């Protein structure tokens, strides 16, 4: 039995190296099966836990009526704008705090303080300030993206062996060039993890924000339906978000990681 399992496993591994997409899909199969069985057995009333078929059907209708594509587009635009600013502000701030003792002294307590106060706590005040538009959403997403990015960048900068700095300085690198030549690449593995965490949580924040300030978007869709008592759209929304994120992660973030940190031997595979 054990050897059989082992053989099956090694067969599976070989299969996934040949066709990586198999490795992407197979792990989900048990999950979907479990979901399907639970709903088929009516462990919970169907109104509370719809099955895969219901979700697919609602996907069909929402696509057909054009609601889903529109909402998806809105959500993605918000996310892109928010993430862009989150990264553009987060990485430089992280570098600053990681490099400068003085900036660390002043900013670190503030960072710690404000990172605990979540986006949701800010929302009531933000909507009064900025209204119910893109600004509020952007602020919330930036606010969410920025902390993981900053904290991980700081850690990355501080983990660069000191002799790297020294080598570059004594080879004539100016302080500004150090940033590009030493600090950024050296901190990159950590920055990537910060990005991954930050963008992931930005995605989450978008949902929370759309519930309250949205007129459209996946989060709005999910919770509007929820107010009317439907769970199908929630599940559908989760699946769409998860899939989108999967694509972003494995088509953008993971290749960058492979081409940098792993290539340079900074992280082991």
């Amino acid at each position: 039995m054990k050897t059989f399992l082992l053989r099956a496993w090694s067969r599976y591994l070989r299969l996934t190296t040949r066709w990586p997409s198999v490795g992407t899909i197979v792990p989900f199969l048990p999950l979907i099966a479990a979901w399907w069985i639970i709903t088929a057995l009516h462990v919970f009333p169907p109104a509370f836990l719809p099955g895969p078929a219901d979700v697919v059907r609602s996907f069909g209708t929402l696509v057909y009526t054009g609601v889903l594509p529109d909402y998806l587009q809105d959500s993605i635009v918000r996310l892109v704008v928010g993430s862009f600013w989150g990264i553009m502000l987060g990485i430089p701030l992280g570098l600053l705090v990681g490099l400068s003792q003085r900036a660390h002294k002043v900013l670190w307590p503030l960072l710690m303080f404000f990172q605990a106060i979540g986006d949701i706590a800010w929302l009531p005040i933000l909507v009064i300030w900025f209204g119910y538009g893109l600004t509020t959403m952007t602020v919330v997403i930036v606010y969410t993206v920025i902390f993981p990015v900053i904290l991980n960048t700081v850690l990355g900068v501080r983990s660069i062996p000191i002799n790297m700095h020294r080598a570059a300085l004594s080879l004539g690198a100016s302080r500004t060039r150090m940033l590009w030549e030493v600090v950024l690449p050296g901190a990159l593995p950590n920055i990537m993890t910060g990005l991954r965490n930050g963008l992931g949580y930005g995605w989450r924040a978008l949902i929370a924000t759309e519930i309250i300030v949205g007129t459209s978007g996946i989060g709005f869709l999910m919770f509007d339906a929820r107010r009317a008592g439907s769970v199908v759209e929630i599940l559908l929304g989760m699946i769409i978000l998860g899939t989108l994120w999967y694509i972003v992660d494995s088509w953008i973030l993971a290749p960058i990681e492979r081409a940098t940190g792993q290539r340079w031997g900074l992280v082991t595979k």
Partner: protein
Amino acid sequence: MLVFTDRGAGRPGAFRSGAAVMRHWVSSSLWFCAPFAVLLVLWAVLVPYFDVNPRLFPHLDAVVQAGLDGIKDGTLIQHIGASLLRVTVGTLLALVFAIPLGIAMGVSPAVSGFLTPPFRFFSVLAGIAWIPVASLWFGYGFGAITFVIFNAVFFIVTYNTLLGVSTIPLQVRHAAASLGAGRWAMLTEVLLPGALPNIVTGIRTGLGFAWRGLIAAEMIATNVGLGYMLFVARDFYKTEVIVLGMIVIGVLWLLLDRLLLAPIERATSERWGMVQRA
């Protein structure tokens, strides 16, 4: 402004005597508080000066008053107590699962190959979206709230642990193996300490998100907790209570970071020279 030199080196002459240690402690505490003092002063001066409507942003004294009231009638303490308990339980649960998983994924390509797709998929699904489903599984109330917090901490700590493990130089792991370290010793003696700087950063960000998750989760099935306090305050436009809640959360978290995480960091990864001193 950028300081590169002498970061690993000691500072001669510091902390020679008890008095010096005291002085250092006082000065670092002052430095720590200074940014907040500036914010408070700005707040106390600017809000009345521009005559900001309390619905937009409350006056400092109103917030102080709300805090005093809450302390006097005991409700604030109750809210804090309830929230702290939930955050603690949710976070601990998350750590218990996240750190081993992160290590397993960092060590074994097979595990990470199989788990990475679902892991990536689920990592972006917000806690509140889970509430309807989670409450079916874990029970409405404490179960669902704990799950939301767990969900907020779990992924971030796992990713950071994973990174921490994979940045341990291979040779160090080899050294331990050839000195006879078994699986367990490898875990406790090499992987955990080696990944520690990253784990701490993971916990630091994760806990931040735990508080956020809490606020969202305490909208359901409860009549106590800071999230609940914010929620009710919002319905009655009590901005001073909202801001009070934010400040309480921030301060709690600062205390936690300064009294727990920062000392851990100082005693470990900084002490070991794995990261440069801040």
